[in-house]
């Protein structure tokens, strides 16, 4: 795809769009095919941990491989990413200036994301993680709005700080993950089978890796890059970033921090439960008073992504399954939100909710979509958020001690706060009287915008109506991780 793009001349918008649309459609089709094929293989009784595995030596002295393989969770993540890339392409139909360069970096970002999800070698995983991060800087810095240089720098530096921790953690796992005399390996599966990391090392490494990934997952107090970064990023980048990139954090947390360091996870989960529990409530409360649509949504993402990490830290199958469902749900929902905010901003040139009102009368299509996104966010049955949140709550409630109960109840209270900030925006911006008479001349969505939103809404409703196949797929994929956790005792 990137090669195709590079061949296009910069002035030829049509060709660039053509390549992007073709590429993202093929990507989407391939992801769907992958999911179907994966489910077929599983149904046929293939019970190995990872399917489609392959491994190529990359740098022998350090035993680095380009090792790939997917389980139920990664295929769903790939599907999510391709849906968002697809929708994002349509949402940035009229990007200006330098469309070719924009899409080039956009594709590089996607490459990083896809590479991350299919890697089972820690080093390549880390490399793809970095590949996904760097384009963010340029995408925000060049095509962003507002204080874009500051935000881009802040986002990149904070995430880089996170990856420094991460690198330390991964190196530690590399050096300690093999029994005495064995060949050191980066392969996640091999390390998990060895299961021999010294517990005292585990604790330290767990903190490093969890914080490293947690920064990307917007864990309190390392979340402040998120509001500024999202507010300044162009639409498609916000979509991809909040929709997929933040999921890298959650994915890494359970795939590396918990899977490879189960003893530490059991022992230290409480620290991070406190932090993520704070994220959930704190993000929601913060969102209640923001006046910029993107800030509201960014804080709402802090709250929802906090819920993902929170669920993963519950260390039981139901809650962790709920966490993954929440990743999917939040990915789609927040992408829809950012797409809509981008579309509204493109028309009104303001994101301040005090300057807008009565959009339903002016652009009913976008208004309805915004309300649907809002309902998904506040957990309305029939859309995906409800399924995810309920699975998390019922899973987390299995812990009966006071500490867990307290945080679970605090977490459930977020469904009310979410309703408050969502309805505040809907009531102010979408409903009510028209605030600015000039806005009456604005037009409703164009076909590419409709395509972008409809594809996301269909997915949201699809998960909301028929969640069980996802639930079963994810649940089955958690078996090795749960086994690792149980083997500690």
């Amino acid at each position, binding site marked *: 795809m990137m090669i195709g793009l590079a061949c296009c001349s910069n002035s030829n918008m049509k060709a660039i769009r053509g390549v992007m649309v073709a590429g993202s459609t093929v990507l989407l089709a391939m992801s769907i095919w992958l999911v179907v094929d994966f489910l077929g293989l599983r149904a046929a009784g293939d019970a190995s941990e990872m399917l489609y595995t392959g491994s190529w030596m990359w740098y022998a002295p350090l035993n680095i491989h380009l090792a790939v393989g997917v389980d139920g969770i990664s295929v769903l993540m790939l599907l999510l990413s391709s849906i968002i890339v697809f929708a994002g392409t349509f949402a940035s139909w009229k990007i200006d200036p330098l469309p070719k360069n924009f899409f080039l970096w956009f594709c590089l970002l996607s490459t990083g994301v896809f590479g991350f999800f299919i890697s089972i070698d820690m080093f390549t995983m880390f490399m793809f993680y970095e590949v996904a991060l760097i384009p963010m800087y340029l995408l925000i810095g060049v095509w962003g709005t507002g204080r874009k240089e500051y935000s881009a720098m*802040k986002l990149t*530096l*904070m995430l880089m700080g996170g990856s420094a921790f991460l690198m330390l953690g991964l190196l530690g796992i590399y050096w300690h993950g093999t029994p005495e005399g064995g060949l050191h390996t980066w392969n996640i599966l091999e390390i998990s089978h060895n299961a021999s990391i010294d517990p005292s090392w585990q604790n330290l490494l767990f903190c490093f890796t969890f914080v490293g990934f947690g920064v990307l997952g917007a864990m*309190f*107090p390392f*979340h*402040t*890059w998120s509001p500024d970064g999202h507010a300044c990023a162009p639409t498609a980048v916000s979509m991809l970033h909040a929709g997929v990139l933040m999921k890298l954090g959650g994915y890494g947390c359970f795939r590396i921090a918990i899977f490879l360091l189960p003893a530490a996870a059991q022992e230290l989960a409480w620290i991070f439960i406190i932090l993520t529990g704070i994220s959930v409530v*704190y993000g929601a*409360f*913060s969102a*209640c*008073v*923001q006046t910029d649509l993107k800030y509201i949504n960014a804080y709402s993402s802090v709250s929802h992504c906090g819920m993902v990490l929170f669920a993963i830290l519950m260390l039981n*199958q*139901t809650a962790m399954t709920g966490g993954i469902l929440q990743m999917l749900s939040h990915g789609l929902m927040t992408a829809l939100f950012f797409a809509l905010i981008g579309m509204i901003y493109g028309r009104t040139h303001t994101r301040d909710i005090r300057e807008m009102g*009565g959009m*339903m*009368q002016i652009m009913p299509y976008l208004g309805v979509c915004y309300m649907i996104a809002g*309902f998904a966010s*506040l*957990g*309305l*049955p*029939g859309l995906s958020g*409800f*399924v995810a949140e*309920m*699975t998390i*709550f*019922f*899973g987390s*409630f*299995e812990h*009966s001690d006071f500490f867990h109960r307290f945080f679970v*109840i605090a977490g*459930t*209270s977020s*469904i*009310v706060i979410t*309703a*408050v900030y969502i*309805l*505040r925006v809907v*009531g102010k911006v979408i*409903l*009510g*009287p028209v605030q600015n008479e000039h806005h009456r001349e604005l037009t409703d969505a164009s076909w590419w915008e409709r395509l972008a939103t409809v594809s996301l809404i269909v997915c949201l409703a699809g998960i909301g109506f028929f*969640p*069980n196949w996802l*639930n*079963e797929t994810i649940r089955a994929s958690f078996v090795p991780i749960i086994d690792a956790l149980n083997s500690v005792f």
Partner: protein
Amino acid sequence: MGITLPILILAIPFTMFLVLGIGGVKMPRKVAGVIGILANASLLAICYTVAFRYFFSGDTQFIVDGVRQQLQVFDVTWLAFTERLVVKIGFLLDPICAMMLIVISTISFMVHLYSWGYMEHEPGFQRYYAFLALFTFSMLGLVVATNIFQMYIFWELVGVSSFLLIGFFYKLPSAVSASKKAFIVTRFADLGMLLGILVLTFYFPTFNFIDITHNTGNVLASTGGATFLGASVLTWALVLIFTGGMGKSAMMPLHIWLPDAMEGPTPVSALIHAATMVVAGVYLVARMFPLYLVEEASMQFITWVGAITAFYAAVVACCQIDIKRILAFSTISQIAFMMVSLGVARPDIHEGLGYMASMFHLFTHAMFKALLFLGAGALIHAVHSNNYTAMGGLRKYMPITHWTFLIGCLAIAGIWPFSGFFSKDEMLSAMFSYSPFWGYWMTMVAGLTAFYMFRMYFLVFWWEENPHYKEHKPHDAPWQMSVPLLILAAVSCVAGFIPFGHFVTWNGEPYDIHINAQVAATSLTVAVIAIAFAGWLYLKKNDKPSLMRQALPALWTAAHRRFYWDEIYLFVTRKIIFGGICKGIAWFDRHVIDATMDAFASMTQFVSVKIKGMQSGSVQTYVVWYFLGALVLAAITWICIL
């Protein structure tokens, strides 16, 4: 019973929602109206078929040895949380469900027909019918739920349809804020319900109603006598689940959304906020009644909440000006009546008379309250105002509305032979048998009910003719609106003679019901006195009401302002939560957390600016640093050796 009809009951309104919701924009309003009414007529036919087959066919699926059975027509897996905790979507047919099918389909059909006239000129007519269909779907899904989680799902969906319909006139800020308030208050209550479900299923991991209500002993045993803050966990679970019911049924202190919900179109108030959705709380308790019986404390809680709410709402209703608000408070009060009746129901007191009476009243109340709301809609349609001050002397101009409204008022006041008399008499008998105190208390509320209803009736239809009628002569509504009024009035006249005890009882065993002469005499006397008093005050224009108001100004103002509940809520939410907590957190985030992060950056910059002078290129400075470093190293080595 085959699964075709039950599936259709859910599928018809849902399909209608999709068709009208997606295709409505391009549809002429006539087509939308015809689709809506035809779909509802078929829904009505199907619901009646199912209910009649359940009650009268005598099939052994439905009735065994004279005992009515609970039948799960279908139950399909929707989401499996764990191996044992599986959410299913199904269709449970039992007496209360069959009764609710009749209530919902009847009122829904009447409202659809009525709206055709009432909403004819409103923009967004198609959207309105789509939302009504969504509501009908969710409400039907709620009553047929086989398990508490399915109920919770549809519970949320009725909440959102209520939100959409209250905010139907979305250009008006008042409608928007009323819909927001309704959603958030009920959402808060639903949080309680969710926590209750979490607690209950933690100890007894099933959602299924039949499993729960038929194994109450096991449920109790599964908690192992655990307690929390002095109450058993089962009581906590039940009270928390009931909190959800308090929200939807507008019990104190979560009642504040219902009066504001009157911002919605009037037919919506008749359907959602009088007849169906607001009784969901009563239905929830009735559904889990055997389990509530296990915990005496939870029954007491229900009784107290109901009794206080009933009295409060009745007092407030006496001092309102807006006729829809009067009806809203009257609804709150009547639902609280049903709650008390459930709360005092015990199997050993006349075989659970309170339960039967509560369901009976739910049925009759749905009919006459829908009638009253639709009548109020006709009045508002005629004079274009919600306040009785714009009305008066309307009996000559609007005879159909007048007579049907009078029937509604007589029914709610509990005058023989209208339906309210019978159901109220059964409820009061149950309360008197449980404890005379609650009996007398609720008789007093019944008296207040008669008073405020007739206060409104006299002020609207008698009193004095409003001078505006000369310019704008009010007249009866078109046939689409009058026909539902007439039908519902007819039902309100005869529904009392239904031998309800044969159909709906707490354990399915039918029995005969009798009028308790003593209770009937007391309540009739009280009601007649109250009506006479209202007539004395309001029949003709006079200054007695204003004298009374001046005699007790503080009480009148307080009751008129609903005893300041809204102000208290506003203070807590706006000042404390929004102004204190939210603003505080947002400030903390920007000025502490973010500032710390920025401080790292500026510190790095500061340090780098300071030390960049060292790279000066001047050899002399380097030499000085070189020797200093060497000295320090030497010192360290020396110390280490020592």
